[in-house]
C-alpha cells in the first residue's frame, strides 16, 4: 500500500461518498477552487456548483443551512477552515444541530458533517490556533472525530458522512503536509473505537490529534530508557471508547492525557474525571494532563513552543510520573 497525502485522502473520501450517495453535498468558503488547504481538490470539476458550493463568510447561517438540508433528507458537509471561526456558528452548532433530534422527540435527525481544524504550531497566533474539541463535546448531540492519519481521515470521514447524526471532524492542519497508507476503495472506521497505537505496560499515554505523533516520538525515546508506554489515540471523543482507555489504565496503572488545547476544561480534564470514576483503585499515581497552560496561543514561535506540549515535554512528564 503506497503512501497517500492526507489532503488527497480527505478529498478522495468526500468524492467517493458523493459518488455513492447523491444526497451528499459540500459547502464552504473557497471549496470550488479546491479549498484553502486543497482538501477539496477536484470535487468541483466532478460535481459542479450544485453539490460543491462556495459560500459567503456566513458561518452561522451556512451551518444552519446544513441543518435545514439535513432534516429534509440531504447529507451536507460544511467546511469551516479553522475551528476558531466556528465560534461564529455556535448557535447553529450547539443550539440547533446538536439538539434537533432531542427537541423533536426523535422525529427528526440532522445527518451532517462539519469539517474543521484544530491546529497550532504554525505561528498563526491567538485566533487561528485553537483546539476547541472540548467546547464542542460539552454539547450533547454532537459526535466528534479527530483523524490523525491518512488512514483514519478516510475511514472516519466515511463513517461521519453515513452517520445519522451531526458529526464534527477536526483535522489538525499539521497533518495536511503528511502522507500515509490509505487503501483505495471503500472502508469505514467506526465512531467510538479508540486505536492503541503502541502497546506498553508502564503508563497509558492518551494523545489527541496532532499530539499523536508527538506521543509516539516520546514513547520511542522513552523505550530507550526502558520505559514502556502504551499510546492510545481515541479517534473520536463522542462516542468515547472508555473501555479501551480503562482497560489500558487497569494494566498500566498510570495515565497522562496530552492535547493541544487549553488545559482548563480541556479533553484531559474530562477523561481524567471519567477514569478516576471507573478505575480509581488501579491508579498508582495521580493521572495527569499536558495541555496549553491557560493562555491564548502567542505568535512568536519560541512562545508558542513553550505553551504547547511536544515530545520532549511529554517524555519529561512521564519520567516525573514514573519517578
Amino acid at each position, binding site marked *: 500500500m503506497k503512501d497517500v497525502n492526507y489532503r488527497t485522502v480527505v478529498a478522495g473520501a468526500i468524492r467517493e461518498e458523493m459518488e455513492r450517495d447523491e444526497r451528499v*453535498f459540500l459547502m464552504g468558503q473557497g471549496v470550488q477552487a479546491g479549498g484553502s488547504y486543497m482538501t477539496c481538490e477536484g470535487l468541483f470539476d466532478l460535481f459542479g456548483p*450544485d*453539490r460543491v*458550493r462556495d*459560500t*459567503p463568510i*456566513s458561518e*452561522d*447561517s*451556512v*451551518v*444552519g*443551512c*446544513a*441543518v*435545514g*438540508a*439535513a*432534516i*429534509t*433528507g*440531504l447529507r*451536507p458537509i460544511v467546511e469551516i477552515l479553522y475551528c476558531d471561526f466556528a465560534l461564529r456558528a455556535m*448557535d*447553529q452548532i450547539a*443550539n*440547533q444541530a446538536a439538539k*434537533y*433530534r*432531542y*427537541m*423533536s*422527540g*426523535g*422525529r*427528526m*435527525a440532522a*445527518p451532517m458533517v462539519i469539517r474543521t481544524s484544530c491546529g497550532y504550531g504554525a505561528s498563526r497566533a491567538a485566533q487561528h490556533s485553537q483546539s476547541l474539541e472540548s467546547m464542542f463535546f460539552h454539547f*450533547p*448531540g454532537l*459526535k466528534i472525530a479527530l483523524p490523525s492519519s491518512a488512514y483514519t481521515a478516510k475511514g472516519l470521514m466515511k463513517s461521519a458522512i453515513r452517520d*445519522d*447524526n451531526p458529526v464534527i471532524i477536526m483535522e489538525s492542519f499539521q497533518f495536511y503536509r503528511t502522507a500515509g497508507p490509505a487503501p483505495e476503495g471503500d472502508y469505514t472506521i467506526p465512531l467510538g473505537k479508540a486505536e492503541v497505537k503502541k502497546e506498553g505496560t508502564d503508563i497509558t499515554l492518551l494523545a489527541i490529534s496532532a499530539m499523536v505523533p508527538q506521543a509516539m516520538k516520546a514513547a520511542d525515546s522513552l523505550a530507550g530508557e526502558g520505559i514502556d508506554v502504551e499510546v492510545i489515540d481515541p479517534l473520536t471523543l463522542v462516542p468515547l471508547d472508555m473501555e479501551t482507555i480503562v482497560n489500558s489504565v487497569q494494566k498500566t496503572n498510570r495515565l497522562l492525557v496530552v492535547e493541544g488545547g487549553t488545559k482548563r476544561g480541556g479533553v484531559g480534564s474530562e477523561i481524567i474525571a471519567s477514569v478516576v470514576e471507573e478505575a480509581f483503585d488501579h491508579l498508582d499515581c495521580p493521572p495527569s494532563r499536558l495541555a496549553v497552560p491557560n493562555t491564548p496561543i502567542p505568535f512568536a514561535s519560541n512562545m508558542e513552543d513553550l505553551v504547547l506540549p511536544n515530545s520532549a515535554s511529554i517524555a519529561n512528564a512521564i519520567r516525573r510520573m514514573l519517578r
Partner: protein
Amino acid sequence: MEISREILIGMYSKMLLLRRFDEKVVELYRSGMKGLYHLTAGGEAVAVGVCSALSQDDYILSTHRGKGHYLAKGGDLQAILAEFMEKQTGCNRGKGGPMHIIDPSVGMLGANGIVGSSLPIACGAALSAKLRRSGQVAAAFFGDGAANSGVWHECMNLAGIWKLPVIFVCENNFYQESVPVSRHSSIQDLYARAAGYNIPGYGIDGMDVSAVYEAAVEAVQRAKRGDGATMLECKTYRFHGHSEADPTKGLRYRSGEELAAWLEKCPLKQAKARLLERGWIADAELEAIDQRCTQGIEEAVNFAKSSPDVPAEWALKDVFTDDQGEICHEGC
C-alpha cells in the same frame, strides 16, 4: 386576485381557531400548565394568510411565537396540547414544549427558542427542495426583532445568491419584547432592506388576511418558478404581553390607547366584516364555525388530559438516532 368565498371562510375559520386556542392556553396556563407561552392573538392574519398559500408538503420554520403558525399549517391540536401538558402523545414526546414545536408531518420544521435561528434552517430546507427538485417552498416567519440579528442578513444574502425558494415573512408587531422598533431598528420599513439582496420586498397590511394571502400566493409562485425568494413585511400587533409571564399585556412599555387602536384592526373582526358585507356568510354559520373551533379544542384538551404522562426516563433517549432506532424523514 379575487379571493373566493370558500378561501376567505376557510381563512376566517383558521384565524378563529388560533384565537380560541390562545384563549385556551391562557386558561390552562393560569391553572398551572408549565412553560413559557408567546401567543398569536393579533397576528392571526399573517400565520393564516401565508400558510393558506402553501401546500401540505411545503415547509414552514417558525419562532418562539410559533403555535399559530403550526395550527395554520394544519397542525394537530391534540399533539400540540399533549405536548404542552407533558404527555406521551405530545408531538415531541414532551421534550420540546411550547418553544420547540416540530411536526414534519405537516411540514412544520420547527419553532425556535433562539430569535432568528430558524431563518438559516429555512434556507437549508429551501436549498434541499431545490437540490431535490421537489418543487417545495419554505416560509420563514420572524419578528421585527429578529430582523436586526446577523443571521437575517446572512440568510437574505444566501437566498439572493442561490435563488432559494424561500419566503421571508416578517411579522413586524413593532416590539422586540419591551423595545419598540424605533429603538432597535435604524429604519422602520424593514422590507426596504430586501433590495440590498436582489430580493423583492413588500410592505403588507398584516391585519388583513386577504392582503397577506395574495402577497403569499405571488411569493409562492415566484419561488416555484425558480425566481427565488421574496420578503413580506407584515405590519401587525400582538394583543397579549410578550409572553404569558407578563399579564399586563405589555402596558408597562406601551400605551393603552395604542393597544386599543390596534384591537380595532383585529384581523378576525376585519375578515368577519368582509364576509358579512359581501353576504358570504350568515350569523348561524359564524356561530357554527366558532362551535367547531371550540369543540375541536375541547376534545384535544380532553385527549391530552387523558393521555399518559411522558415517562421520565425518556429524557435519556433521542440524544442520538442510535438511542432510538431509525432516522425519520416524515414529510420530506
